[in-house]
């Protein structure tokens, strides 16, 4: 056990250089702006004085290492700069919009895991069957779907043709009021409030974008589950279990599935990366008021502080998610952190 604990703390410590690297890259991205960064940061409507002011505020008159230290200081104070277009601090805007993005992403991931993992397992246990064929088609077609295109098609079918989906604009139809803010997740807040009507309205808005994103993440998870399950089923220890007369369910779920879960959990990290990226596109298609659409709006008006804040926030979120995945992994693999792994 102490070896495991040590491995976990080593993993936690490993996050530190990665976070540092992320900060360095995001700093370099800011300083690599074409032309005079001060002009860019001050925005299109800036005067000569405001540009000078921005230059001093950003420390652009100093050397690069000094600028980096200044940048670190700002980050430590939670200062990501001001958005040029809205005039608000970037941090507070990101914080306000983050729950919308998280709600969408998590909803989609839960949805796709709930479908993809059973599908992958079924396909692996019945190779060559109809389920297996379906899985193969879905997997190849799924990774080929451009998320923004899937979203557009879903809107056309379910909103325009069938009329069963609400208008694809935001998290809640305008006739409803936002539920009282507790977590920022509308489904949870509405449930806490006991407001069934708002809850259903929020769910209705969530289904199409959630489905779009889920369709995209379905493929890699199903593919990995199927492959991992197949390789687990052909392992020697499954033969031992069969020779010992264990029943089919015990072999499939107690032995094979638990081993197959390890590579699947590892893949989740990559899936998260794709999901967070696709999230930006889906938010734009469905006018979802999350941090992705915030970044897209900022890009259009060259609001650099907002874009860099967004990139940094996403990276930190992803580092955190990876950490959670690895810790989950350490809980299910006894070999974690030993030389056997």
């Amino acid at each position, binding site marked *: 056990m102490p070896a495991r604990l040590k491995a976990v703390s080593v993993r936690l410590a490993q996050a530190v250089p990665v976070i540092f690297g992320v900060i360095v890259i995001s700093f370099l991205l800011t300083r690599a702006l074409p032309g005079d960064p001060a002009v860019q940061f001050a925005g299109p409507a800036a005067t000569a004085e405001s540009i000078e002011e921005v230059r001093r505020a950003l420390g652009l008159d100093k050397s690069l290492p000094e600028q980096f230290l200044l940048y670190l200081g700002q980050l430590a104070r939670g200062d990501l700069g001001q958005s040029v277009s809205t005039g608000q601090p970037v941090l507070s805007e990101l914080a306000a919009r983050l729950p919308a993005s998280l709600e969408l992403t998590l909803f989609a991931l839960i949805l796709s895991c709930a479908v993809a993992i059973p599908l992958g397992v079924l396909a692996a246990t019945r190779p060559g069957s109809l389920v297996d064929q379906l899985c193969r088609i879905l997997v190849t077609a799924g990774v080929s779907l451009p998320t923004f295109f899937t979203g557009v098609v879903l809107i056309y079918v379910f909103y325009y043709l069938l009329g069963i989906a609400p208008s694809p604009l935001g998290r809640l139809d305008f006739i409803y009021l936002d539920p009282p803010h507790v977590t920022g997740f509308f489904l949870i807040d509405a449930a806490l409030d006991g407001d069934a009507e708002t809850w259903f309205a929020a769910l209705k808005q969530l289904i199409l974008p959630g489905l779009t994103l889920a369709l995209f993440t379905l493929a890699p998870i199903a593919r990995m589950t199927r492959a991992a399950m197949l390789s687990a089923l052909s392992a020697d*220890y499954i033969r*031992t279990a069969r020779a*010992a*007369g*264990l*029943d089919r369910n015990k072999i499939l779920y107690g032995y094979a599935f638990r*081993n197959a879960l390890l590579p699947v959990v590892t893949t989740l990290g990559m899936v998260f990366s794709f999901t967070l990226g696709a999230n930006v596109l889906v938010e734009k298609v469905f006018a979802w008021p999350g941090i992705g659409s915030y970044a897209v709006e900022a890009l259009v008006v060259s609001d650099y502080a907002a874009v860099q804040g967004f990139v940094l926030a996403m990276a930190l979120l992803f580092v955190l998610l990876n950490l959670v995945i690895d810790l989950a992994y350490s809980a299910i693999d006894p070999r974690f952190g030993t030389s056997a792994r």
Partner: protein
Amino acid sequence: MLSVKDFQVAFKTRKGEVNAVKGISFELARGERLGIVGESGSGKSVTSYALMRILDANGRIKAGDAVYSGIDLRRAAERDMRDLRGREISMIFQNPRAALNPIRKVGHQIEDVLRQHARATRQDARKKAIEALEAVKIHDAEARYDAYPFELSGGMCQRVVCAIALACDPKLMIMDEPTTGLDITTQKAVMDLVDGLVKARGMSSILITHDLGLASEYCDRIVVMKDGRIVEEGAPTALLGTPQHAYTRKLVDATPRRGVAIRQLLPAEDRRPLAPHEIKDTPLIEVKDLIKTYQGKSGPVQAVKGISFTIREGQSVGLVGESGCGKSTTSSMLVRLFDPTSGQILFRGADLAQMPAADFARSPLRGKIQMVFQDATDSLNPRHTARQSIAEPLKRMTDLRGAAQAARVEELASLTGLPAHLLDRFPHQLSGGQKARVGIARAIATDPDFLILDEPTAALDVSIQAVVLNLLADLRARLGMSYLFVSHDLNVVRLLCDHVIVMKGGEIVDSGPVEQVMDAPAHPYTRELLSAAPQAPIPAPAA
């Protein structure tokens, strides 16, 4: 107890159906210990999987009957088979570490079997699992209960596999190459343990192995399989003493054992006289205080702890030891693939250790020191033909080009007995023995004076091994090379070497002329190694 009649097993493959077992029949009496012996591809393992009905999805029992205590194993419902497995018939496998679920505590894996066959309840499962571990003589079974397979040694894992197999008191134990990959002393310990339990509990057993010695030591009766058929059966002494079938004869002859000369491994008609090799008094290789230290996770690990020995011109030295004894590290340093931490390797007086391994490729001595690798498949570039592989050292280290080079490659092929028409094949198109010949031809391409043979026959079937060992003996006499023969198998070393060095834990524990070390072993470890190697009761042939 078990009666198998005209049993056939077939596999569906891309190239149509392949018959792996082509109609075999045998009986097994209660309390009898049967050995099934054969080389790779003989269908011996497939037979056992088919009896247990655990064939892969593409395999099926095609015809014949197998009846175990009145139960038709071919037609029984899957539910009944499941009930039978582990409770009536158990099985243990090769590669014990992989045979255990890597992420489940070994105690729980035993409990699974006990619970499945209703031999334990939730309350007493733990107690019974620990008893099962104690039954296979695992010390401190209470603590081992919570161990994961990766925390146990290979021998220990095989004991756990045995504990799983024996937990429900089965009547028949099938062992499929149970000791492949284990060291010789571990092999003996595991086999003695299982055999003792089988006898004590009045069980029957089937031992599937390629090793005649192992089979004759632990079986009452042996059947010999070849290409999916049984060619001969009988009691070990009779079968090995007076083999009737030509294939059995060949197998028996090819088995290395005490008291035979290398030529006697071959079929009688191939035993041309062996030219003697000349051993000079001048030293070719002198190793002095050689040390290799690795940087391990928990501090430095000394793999080789200051060893010294001498190989004279024309002499063949055997380097023997179990896995982890440092013999492979030593050979890698001698062939200059690794740098030693300290010490000298004198080649005709010049210290090779002075030149870093990375630069040795350019040394004129590179061609003088060559090696034949353990795994012929792994040591040939999969994208090069046999011709390209053999020509590679010629291109890099000699001036031979064009027709002269091609002629030299063909000369090497004929020296090593590789038919010229195979030269344009890729490794995957060659058999194990042919690949071994390519490896040897490549190693002798630059006329080396010193050849390191790193278990060159470990992956080969025994009849091919006999041929390759004889080829090596011929080449030594013909080209006047010195050998360092690295092996775990003392019986093989005895055949080819003049002098032998025994290593353990990075140190040389014993050394001397082959006859002295092998026939009158002075060191207890050498004695242990010698007694652990199973000896097939084969009478020495009349020379």
